């Protein structure tokens, strides 16, 4: 069922992580990803993993749900791991079969890279699980606002993003409905060759397109009725505000970052 596609995977709960300012979370996620890629030995990754586990525990997001977010990129992870496994040459040959040669260093690197990617993905999904799409775009808009000096339409970008996110579930629902309606008239979407299948999409795409335009016009009218005139002089109902907990979050992350930098300088790298 098309409805099963999870998007905007916000997981509503009351937790410290949810309550953090979206700007804090955005900065921290960027910092976290940098930190995961700075770390060049397993101790660094261990520290990073521990940090993530702590954050997840605080966020009340079920670990199962967190792990599920890695599912779409399993292929990428496997691909990276296999490439590393095959191409990194080391001192100890573990396995040989034809042109396939696997060295100890290859295994280490493969595992290391896989963990790195998984941690980075988990880190960013923690952000999307704990921040609603609206908060996220709000945070982005505020973080990007210095770019206004360069005449970049930051507010408009943020608004476009909000609208796009808002309409994804609506459009999915609409697609579902139109598909059912055409199937009820005998549309055959499941069989036939490529050309036939592409042609079968026409009766779905055209109504979907038409209705998107209709929705866009309706939305524009509704916005104008409420005197929307762009970002200029616009005030906010919910002002983003940093709190003590944000300072704590920055502090802890800085500590972990420091730890990882120290560990990666002092300890020998994996490769």
């Amino acid at each position, binding site marked *: 069922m098309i409805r099963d596609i999870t998007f905007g995977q916000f997981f509503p709960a009351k937790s410290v992580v949810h309550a953090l300012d979206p700007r804090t979370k955005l900065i921290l996620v960027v910092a976290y990803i940098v930190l995961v890629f700075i770390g060049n030995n397993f101790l660094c990754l261990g520290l990073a993993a521990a940090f993530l586990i702590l954050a997840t525990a605080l966020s009340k997001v079920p670990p199962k749900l967190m792990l599920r977010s890695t599912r779409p990129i399993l292929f990428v992870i496997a691909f990276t791991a296999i490439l590393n496994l095959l191409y990194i040459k080391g001192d100890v040959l573990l396995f040989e079969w034809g042109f396939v040669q696997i060295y100890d260093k290859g295994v280490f690197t493969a595992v290391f890279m896989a963990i790195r990617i998984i941690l980075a993905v988990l880190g960013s999904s923690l952000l999307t699980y704990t921040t609603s799409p609206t908060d996220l775009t709000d945070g982005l808009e505020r973080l990007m606002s210095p770019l206004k000096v360069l005449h970049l339409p930051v507010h408009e970008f943020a608004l476009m993003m909000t609208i796009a996110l808002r309409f994804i579930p609506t459009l999915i629902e609409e697609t579902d*409905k*139109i598909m*059912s*309606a*055409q*199937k*009820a*008239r*005998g*549309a*055959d979407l499941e069989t036939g060759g490529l050309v036939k299948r592409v042609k079968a999409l*026409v*009766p*779905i795409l*055209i*109504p979907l397109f*038409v*209705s998107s335009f209709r929705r866009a016009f309706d939305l524009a009218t509704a916005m104008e009725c409420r005197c929307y005139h762009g970002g200029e002089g616009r005030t906010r109902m919910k002002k983003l505000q940093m709190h003590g907990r944000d300072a704590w979050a920055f502090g802890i992350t800085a500590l972990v970052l420091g730890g990882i930098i120290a560990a990666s300088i002092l300890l020998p790298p994996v490769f």
Partner: protein
Amino acid sequence: MPILETKELTYIYGQNSPFEKKALDTVSIAIDEGEFVGVIGHTGSGKSTLVQHLNGLIKPTSGSILLDGRDIWAEPKKIRAVRFEVGLCFQYPEYQLFAETVYKDIAFGPQNMGLDEEEVNKRVKSAAAFVSLKPELLEKSPFDLSGGEKRRAAIAGVLAMEPKVLILDEPTAGLDPKGRDVILGQIREYQKERGSTVLLVSHSMEDVARVCSKVLVMNDAKCAMYGTVDEVFTRASELAGMGLNIPQVTRIFLGLKERGYNVNTCVYTARQGRDEILRLLSQAKGGDGR
């Protein structure tokens, strides 16, 4: 033998997920050929889910659907054939129009059935005539029609498949009273002329009372009542408990009965009401109406 029958039909949305919800709970109904069934129930009662089962758009979690005594899921590969026999017209069907001309859009169903050009042409013409779309409109783009015309063109798209069972999900939603009367009249005419079985999902008790012979009441994913219009609408208080209202006229007559007047409460339209009051008055002249 009933033409369409469900046995212990159960459907669960999002099974094994936190959003799990029973949309249909052991629904067993039997619909006879030539019947005009009104399906009522308030939002979320499962009526849309039910009708989508009847033409095989949704596969039941458990239970079965029999068309002419044959399980429609006996051969899942042939489910498309079921959809030609049980025509389903969705709510706001005008949003599914897609072809360059009204003709091509109405012909979509018959063409999918694999009929030859001549037969398709015949069916499109007759379906358009049923919903009184003027022949010159057939060559126009469906997007240039008025709202009411679009709705009728979309309904014609389902009629053109000439299904044995026709299901319409709120065909009059969002239309003005005149447009509503026109469409209901056309559906009734179609049913009379073809002798086909029709299911009409509706919110309007007045509409159901006026055109249907039987009423199916859905409540909380279950089939709460199924019987003739008279049988169902006399249980007004039960219906009210489900958040449903019987037609206003009927309410007045039930009230009159409660107050001791000897009236027939099977009154669903203003016209019937007028006749009943006139009867009562003439009776009162002759003797005591009470």
